[in-house]
């Protein structure tokens, strides 16, 4: 019997010839990412250990991205603790360089790796054929100290992609369609594996967007086959694969889905759940107070190009704040070079430094009671973007930008 990509990566990390879904293995982790959302607590626990130690400091990557620049003395204290510890221990440390997953994709993730990230959207790394999974700070600390952890081999849902997304439809619409189909816990404890000839039509940016959101269906990880597009991205970032795995033809899947990309339409996820999806046109006319273009899901140069092409020569609606937040420093520099930042600024947008921003509702741009946000962020949970009685709609970059111009939810073709 063949193996899925997830089974092969766990086998590599466990140093065994094969694994099966449901087995528990002790694995050697390749990389350990942590951000300012929880690292201060990890450090507190580390300092209470009887024998504090770091197995291999070269595995660790720490990134300040959630509340950067800091918004309060409490935040500043937690981040200082992280910064000081990283410096004292020689941990690779980024601050202000961008959203953790974008920074990881640009600088660290390699195909075949098993990566723990103290952030649920670590599953994004599957776009490069790496098994990334979100953990809490206790799991993170254990892995930091021992270099190992235990993993239950997940069952896999296989998604065969066919055809190509229509013009004006994006990867975000594809993954929201899939989440709507399988539900918020449709992939709980499972891996989501993507292949089929349609995969080749998706750019790296698209792939990150798809894998990143799989946790919103509960997935433990997301995985894509590594093809020439992925290899090109790796070469451009001066990296080599650890191992290249494809799923065996006789691999066993919990479920196989065939997805016709040509039928996907612009989607909106309505409050307060990511699987609460409808065609974007059904939300037309909903008044908004704020729009957000950014996040690890849709803050890449491709997304900024989509937004800029729609807003060029137009103005943000006078009753709307339009936040544009590139996902990393390199994305921002590229956007500056292409003149996209000028376009957004001239249109009246608020352009901010690379960070998680209002996607996680604790720092910049939080919304008040009764307010409505349309966002390319990752989640629309109750209160996610600020006040507990506020509303978040998730949509693609085009719908978000078009809505910022119109002051109400609209698709770009109805602007």
């Amino acid at each position: 019997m063949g193996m899925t990509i997830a089974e092969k990566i766990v086998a590599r990390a466990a140093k065994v010839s094969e694994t099966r879904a449901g087995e528990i293995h002790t694995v050697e982790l390749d990389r350990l990412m942590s951000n300012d959302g929880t690292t201060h607590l990890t450090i507190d626990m580390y300092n209470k250990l009887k024998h504090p130690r770091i197995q291999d400091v070269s595995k660790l990557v720490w990134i300040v991205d959630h509340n950067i620049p800091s918004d309060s003395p409490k935040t500043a204290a937690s981040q200082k603790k992280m910064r000081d510890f990283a410096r004292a221990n020689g941990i690779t440390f980024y601050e202000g360089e961008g959203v953790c997953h974008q920074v990881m994709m640009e600088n660290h993730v390699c195909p075949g790796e098993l990566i723990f990230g103290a952030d649920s959207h670590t599953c994004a790394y599957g776009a490069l054929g790496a098994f990334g999974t979100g953990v809490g700070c206790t799991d993170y600390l254990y892995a930091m100290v021992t270099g190992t952890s235990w993993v239950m081999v997940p069952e896999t849902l296989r998604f065969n992609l066919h055809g190509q997304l229509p013009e004006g439809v994006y990867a975000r619409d594809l993954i929201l369609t899939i989440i709507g189909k399988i539900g918020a816990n449709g992939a709980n404890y499972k891996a989501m594996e993507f292949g089929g000839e349609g995969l080749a039509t998706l750019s790296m940016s698209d792939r990150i967007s798809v894998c990143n959101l799989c946790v919103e269906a509960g997935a433990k990880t997301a995985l894509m086959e590594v093809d020439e597009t992925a290899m090109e991205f790796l070469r451009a970032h001066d990296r080599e694969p650890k191992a290249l795995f494809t799923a065996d033809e006789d691999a066993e899947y919990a479920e196989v889905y065939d997805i016709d990309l040509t039928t996907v339409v612009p989607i909106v996820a309505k409050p307060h759940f990511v699987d609460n999806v409808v065609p974007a046109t059904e939300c037309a006319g909903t008044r908004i107070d704020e729009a957000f273009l950014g996040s690890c899901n849709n803050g890449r140069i491709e997304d900024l190009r989509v937004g800029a092409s729609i807003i060029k020569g137009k103005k943000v609606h006078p009753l709307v704040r339009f936040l544009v937040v590139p996902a990393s420093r390199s994305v921002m520099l590229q956007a500056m070079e292409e003149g996209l930042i000028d376009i957004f600024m001239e249109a009246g947008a608020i352009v901010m430094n690379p960070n998680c921003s209002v996607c996680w509702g604790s720092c910049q741009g939080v919304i008040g009671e009764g307010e409505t946000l349309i966002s390319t962020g990752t989640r629309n949970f109750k209160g996610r973007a600020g006040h507990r009685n506020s509303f978040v709609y998730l949509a693609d970059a085009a719908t978000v930008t078009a809505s910022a111009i119109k002051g109400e939810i609209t698709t770009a073709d109805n602007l």
Partner: protein
Amino acid sequence: MGTIFRFHTDVDTDQIIASQYLLYPTIDEMKEHTFESLDPEFAGKVKPGDYVVAAENFGCGSSREQAPAVLKALGVKAVLAKSFARIFYRNAINIGLPVIVCRDLYDHVKDGDEMELLLEEGLVRTGGNEYTCTKLPAQMQKILDQGGLIASLDREVE
């Protein structure tokens, strides 16, 4: 006996503890805001030994370990749900907060009911009835028995 605080399906970790409190220096400073969006009075009402009971997919969303940690810090004895989201489940066991799959309990209790949990037997008693819970996987029971993952780490060194 402890009091049941009953929550719905798909309770996400943002509802358990909102993002704006996560960078507070300590769990003790965060715990006053537990379940603030769903029940602002929760932290004041819950007593050590009480229980959280929920439907499907409890703890979905972010990987914030602060979610099980604030429940534990408030003295919640266990969370019993029809099902749990993966990361929350693992985090809770890692810090020594029992999370128990009990499929039948939710539909037969209401907020404020009293219940008793017999952890080792995997039994819940409430309203004159008994409900059987699903046993933890051996790997997780071992971690829980040792008082959480960090306790096991300290032990491994000795």
